[in-house]
């Protein structure tokens, strides 16, 4: 089932386009990844798709009553707003404590419900964000560089969790990522952006596309090929165990 469609979407800040003429769609059960260099319009596209910015041109269509589980890049928790994990999970819709416990379990962070949000480590924080998104019973899960601040094994564990969640809920997943090697292996389809869609397809197709090579091939000095082999080893890590708790003053 098609959940979201964008036709000829041009997005930008004010009237300056950052991203031009994007045609995009995502179906139930699909994992689609957006890659591209900094400033290529990845986050802009996500914001356009969730309706946080108005298109300069083109349109976005969502299926009626589409439930979006959104995991942002990061949240600023500067400590002014006192917020326990369970209170956070109840924004904007309240849930039973059973449902919250289940979601935290699914996200891989049980037993955090009573903690303050600002006392969480980076890995715990991202997983709580994921738990909140899961509580919305999403038709589509949108992750905007959700592994920022996690180390590589942590990020890999996080993405495995996402794949599990997709298998359980059957929802679509749209991800933005810098972790090319990890993310591409887990994706059904990859869109490579650089101010426009420069290439798209299955991970293998994109990886061999000259446009993609031009963007990433030389930049990583061929290291990308190595990463793909590395991924064959099955690392098993739970990043929340070695997350660094912030020392709050």
């Amino acid at each position, binding site marked *: 089932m098609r959940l979201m469609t964008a036709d000829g979407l041009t997005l930008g800040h004010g009237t300056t386009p950052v991203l031009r003429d994007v045609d995009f769609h995502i179906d139930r059960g699909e994992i689609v990844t957006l890659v591209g260099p900094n400033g290529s319009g990845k986050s802009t596209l996500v*914001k356009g798709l969730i309706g946080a910015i108005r298109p300069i041109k083109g349109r976005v269509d969502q299926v009626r009553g589409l439930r*979006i589980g*959104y995991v942002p890049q990061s949240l*600023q928790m500067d400590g*002014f707003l*006192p*917020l326990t994990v369970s209170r*956070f999970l109840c924004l*904007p819709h309240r849930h039973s404590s059973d449902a919250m416990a289940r979601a935290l379990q699914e996200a891989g962070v049980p037993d955090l419900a009573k903690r303050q949000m600002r006392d969480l480590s980076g890995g715990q924080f991202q997983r709580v964000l994921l738990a909140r998104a899961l509580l919305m019973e999403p038709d589509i899960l949108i992750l*905007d560089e959700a592994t920022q601040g996690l180390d590589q094994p942590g990020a890999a564990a996080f993405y495995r969790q996402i794949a599990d969640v997709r298998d359980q809920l059957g929802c679509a997943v749209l991800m933005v990522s810098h972790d090319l090697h990890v993310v591409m292996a887990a994706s059904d389809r990859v869109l490579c952006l650089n101010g426009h869609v420069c290439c798209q397809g299955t991970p293998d197709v994109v990886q061999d596309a000259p446009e993609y090579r031009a963007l990433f091939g030389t930049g990583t000095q061929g290291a990308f090929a190595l990463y793909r082999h590395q991924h064959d080893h099955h690392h098993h890590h739970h990043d929340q165990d070695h997350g660094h708790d912030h020392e709050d003053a």
Partner: protein
Amino acid sequence: MLDDFLVRAGLAGVGTALAAAPLGCFVVWRRMAYFGDATAHAALLGVALSLAFQGPIMIGVLATALIMATLVQSLSGRGLAEDTLLGVMAHAALAVGLVAVSLLSGVRVDLMSYLFGDILAVSKTDLALIWTGAAAVVGLILWRWQRLLTATLNPDLAQASGISAKTEQLVLTVALAVTVAVAIKVVGALLIGALLVIPPAVARPLARTPEVMALLTAGIGSLSALGGLGAAYQFDTPTGPTIVCVAAGLFIITTLFGARTLR
């Protein structure tokens, strides 16, 4: 009972504190302290305009506060650093208001009472207006509570759940304008900002959830208002500033001791 000016003053103070409590929490959570100041300072211009056109003061204050808040919002994000912009607006609004009051010919204006409030001169009509305004502000914020909190956390997070961050910002702007109109008689244009920011700052170290913080803020604000009123009566000091002094004293206490005991 309402014939006693001290009772009226107490009720006015508590009403203002209740209106300021949930709004003040959002001012602190969203780092809008200067925004509150700019809006409050614009109130003086509203006073001048009301006097010039012989309209009701509260309407003039409400209108200028709304215009100011909208103006600040539409100017923000246009290149100037936010705090610089708000600093310019807050002080410019105050200066323009002072000049405007001085230009009023033929009207004798007790400037001090608008700058620092005149809670002891609150009439029954004022009292009715204050409590109506306070009820409106608290009702508005309670109605939007979940949405406001979500939008405060992150605008995109809110948008993904179908909540418009812009709409919620507008809700706060309206609430702020009403609060300023309500509070000008009680603490005056200069100290409204203090009434918004200090009670939530007192409550912060004692709270673990937003709701507890808002309730504590209401209590602390009311306590400051009544304590300040009592102290001002006792020591014959100006009431508005005394209320703020009591709140500031409470701030020192909870900041020094509150955080430690809760850890």
